[in-house]
């Protein structure tokens, strides 16, 4: 399947513009920036009041994305199903895969924009301290890939229901699992009773280890492969859900 056919591009443009056709997108972008800023400067500082460090900035992305990515993806398919426009979309000469990819790219691009718009925080920190440029780029790459994995999950859950709220909650639960499964504090607790092979198997599903290694400025092929696999699996799941709806 082609990653961006002409049809995918048309659907991408429509979906991406749809974010900006209501003021919600602007509210979303501002809120995203403010939340990350608040958590970085106030909450983290509260515990670690010593020096400027981007560690605390990148620390928050998995948690802020957990709350906000599902909000950006919840309507993608559920709204098409609720209003019946899915019937229009799928009787146009496009394949289901093309439509699915168009929506995924649009939501991921929107989240990438939200991520990049946090750069004022980075600039502020650079002023205060002297962070490493490689770590900044690695951190951003990690944050964008992480958002991609969450977006794919959100696209999938939005296909499961006509209800945006259900779509949001299910996406949040799945993403929470992806985040917590390999988060050291949780792993330590689980380690006390579960066999270590089980702990490492579950942890290997998690976004966290891959997120953290990118934050150190090391771009490891395996981390990128991990995110690509999560995205492909979630989108394939979405494809199956939509295909089943049609044949039901």
């Amino acid at each position, binding site marked *: 399947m082609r990653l961006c056919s002409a049809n995918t591009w048309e659907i991408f443009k*429509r979906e991406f513009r749809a974010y900006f056709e*209501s003021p919600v997108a602007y509210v979303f972008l501002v809120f995203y920036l403010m939340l990350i800023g608040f958590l970085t400067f106030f909450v983290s500082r509260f515990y670690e009041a010593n020096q400027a460090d981007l560690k605390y900035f990148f620390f928050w992305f998995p948690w802020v994305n957990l709350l906000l990515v599902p909000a950006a993806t919840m309507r993608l398919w559920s709204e098409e199903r609720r209003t019946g*426009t899915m019937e*229009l979309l799928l009787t146009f*000469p496009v394949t289901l895969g093309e439509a699915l990819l168009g929506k995924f790219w649009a939501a991921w691009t929107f989240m990438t924009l939200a991520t990049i718009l946090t750069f004022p925080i980075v600039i502020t920190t650079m002023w205060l301290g002297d962070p490493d440029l490689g770590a900044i780029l690695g951190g951003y790459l990690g944050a964008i890939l992480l958002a991609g994995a969450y977006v794919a999950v959100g696209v999938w859950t939005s296909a499961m229901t006509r209800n945006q709220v259900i779509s949001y909650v299910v996406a949040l639960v799945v993403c929470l699992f992806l985040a917590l499964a390999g988060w050291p504090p949780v792993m330590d607790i689980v380690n006390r009773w579960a066999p270590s092979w089980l702990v490492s198997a579950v942890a290997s599903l998690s976004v966290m280890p891959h997120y953290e290694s990118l934050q150190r400025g090391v771009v490891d092929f395996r981390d990128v492969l991990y995110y690509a696999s999560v995205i492909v699996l979630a989108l394939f799941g979405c494809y199956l859900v939509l295909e089943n709806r*049609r*044949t039901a």
Partner: protein
Amino acid sequence: MLDVQHLQKKFGLIEAVRDISFAVTKGEILGVLGPNGAGKSTTMRMITGFLPPTSGTAIIGGYDIVEQPLQAKRLIGYLPENAPLYPEMTVRGFLDFVAGIRGYRGAERRRRVESAIERCRLEKVRHQTIETLSKGYRQRVCFAQAVLHDPQLLVMDEPTDGLDPNQKHVVREMIRSMASEKAILISTHILEEVEAVCTRAIIIADGRIIAEGTPAELKARHPSGRLDEVFRMLTRSAAEQTVVHR
């Protein structure tokens, strides 16, 4: 142009469409008449490739909708039931999107959008968002989307449902104006519509075709010579038969 062959659709235990076959040629307007729940929408959804049939298929201009869906879909314009649209888009923006999906680019794309706007008399509302439009205008926007690429087959599911008499008149005029160069399939449960626009009609009830003919032929089936009497006579007996079956 359209050849429907033994279409059947089951939803679990419900058999919504049972072995429906018919054909529509260019220049014809075929009315699909039937009470609510008869299987009209399900039939149209299979013909347009939205729902895969349980068995049977539809051939559109030589392309099988099950085997070659993309080629077949290029030849179809479809107005689904209740005219679904993207509410937050403007009329122009929406039609431009449809033109893009239909493969038009550049000047041709603009020309297609403009001609659809003109043909469906949407000039006044072209910059309005769809959610602010009245039901009649929405129906026309969805109609514009269906005819933008000059399809050889036009499929319309209850195109005048919920419109006032003036709006109905406008939509019927638009349908008639396109009749000569297309094959048109219209579903309705409004009998006057069949007499007003169709060249031929099939009556379906409970997923089966129970009568077929020109409006005049159908009317001759009842001594009163009125289509609504024929319809009641046929659909009532069909309903009674299936009750006995069960």
